[in-house]
């Protein structure tokens, strides 16, 4: 099992410096792959539409996920509801490459997350801060992403979560060793994980940005803030020219400090997704699953 967990963390390492794109059909998956996505997230509706439609949102139809697995050669991820281990079992049965236990879907359990150590396939989970990230890792997550606020096209929450994470990591790294026990207690996480952060100055798994990325500049911002890669959900297929925007975001993630290049990439992309401001949101998905 230890070995499987290592391999799962290592798959996330291979995705670094890349863009993972939400897709709802095999055709979109092809567009994403051709535009340079390092993986795709198969889901029935992109977060902006989930938000608009309301109601309960669940794991996607396995047939639709299989269609996407057949359409592309890059890794395919899919979402299950927080705590819904039966959905996760189904995703494992169809050999998904990564499960996202995601706050974008309606939570199935308001207390417990999935015991991800029970699974062979890897899990990515959202986190707003260091405590959440380490709790998910303790449960067996092999990759972390910021929660941001999905389906809004508003980057403010992803920025807030990434900054909270980084400042907490810097704080733990600078602590005296004898106060780490108290810090573990405060964050409600095992001492060993706090000790890892203290010694290495980073999470023990790869950390991507997610939730609100809509432009190449958004992606570059998150990379400069320390993200190791980017998830783009509604930002691509809710925009005027998905193909061009997807390709531009991929290149912006590779050359995230090259403002000259990003200026060129940002030109003539067509309309960005409209977006909703933080204050206008009825439903805060980031509040789901702590």
């Amino acid at each position: 099992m230890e070995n499987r967990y290592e391999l799962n963390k290592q798959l996330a390492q291979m995705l670094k410096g890349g863009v993972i794109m939400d897709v709802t059909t095999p055709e979109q998956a092809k567009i994403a792959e051709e535009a340079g996505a390092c993986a795709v997230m198969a889901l029935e509706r992109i977060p902006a539409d989930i938000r608009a439609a309301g109601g309960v949102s669940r794991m996607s139809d396995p047939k639709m996920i299989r269609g996407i697995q057949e359409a592309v050669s890059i890794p395919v991820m899919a979402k299950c509801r927080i705590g819904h281990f039966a959905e996760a079992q189904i995703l494992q049965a169809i050999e998904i490459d990564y499960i996202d236990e995601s706050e974008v879907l309606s939570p199935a359990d308001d207390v417990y997350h999935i015991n991800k150590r029970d699974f062979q396939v890897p899990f990515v989970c959202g986190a707003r801060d260091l405590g959440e990230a380490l709790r998910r890792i303790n449960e067996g997550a092999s990759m972390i992403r910021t929660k941001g606020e999905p389906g809004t096209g508003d980057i403010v929450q992803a920025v807030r979560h990434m900054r909270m994470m980084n400042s907490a990591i810097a704080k733990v790294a600078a602590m005296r060793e004898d106060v780490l026990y108290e810090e573990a207690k405060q964050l409600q996480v095992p001492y060993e994980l706090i000790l890892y952060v203290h010694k290495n100055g980073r999470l023990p798994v790869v950390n991507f940005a997610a939730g609100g990325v809509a432009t190449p500049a958004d992606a570059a911002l998150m990379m400069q803030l320390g993200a190791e890669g980017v998830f783009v959900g509604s930002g691509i297929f809710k925009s005027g020219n998905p193909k061009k925007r997807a390709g531009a975001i991929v290149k912006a993630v590779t050359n995230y400090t090259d403002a000259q290049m990003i200026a060129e990439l940002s030109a003539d992309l067509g309309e960005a997704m409209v977006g909703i401001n933080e204050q206008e949101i009825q439903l805060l998905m980031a509040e789901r699953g702590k």
Partner: protein
Amino acid sequence: MKIGILAVQGAFAEHEAVLDALHIPYKEIRCMRDLQQTFDGVILPGGESTVQGKLLHELHLFAPMRQWIADGMPVLATCAGMILLAQTIEGQDTAYFATIPITVRRNAYGRQLGSFHTESECRGIGKIPMTFIRAPYITQAGDGVSILSTIEEHIVAVRYQNQIALSFHPELDCDYRLHQGFLELCKQ
């Protein structure tokens, strides 16, 4: 000595950590500007070959880097890197650098559930740890390709002239012997 590491996408930081441990200077290659220096060798890291191949073209790195390799610059290529060097990729009409006469099968061990870790013999080195992540393997090797390692009859490591191509990821295991062998090539 200075090594260039292709850093458009993937696990380049892991190779950097190995070179740091061996006290070897390196630079990342992300855009054309980065090619305006002299390198003694180049590393092609793991990641997604479709992404790396596309970015090599769009960032105008492809032609100059292919020339370096064709002119004999030593290369260490892991996983996706091996796919970039292969002359033929099964199921695809196009290849990338195509500087080693081999045929590779992408995701040859299946999806992530097929990823595995093992130890096996590598010619000239001995037993080494090998980590395979959604890995390719070589289905055919042409003239002049020297086979360094096979696992269950599948070729997973080759050398051709100054190019070393591996299905697995030595940068993920704390065994630097393959990197040291590559650095010996770079010194010559």
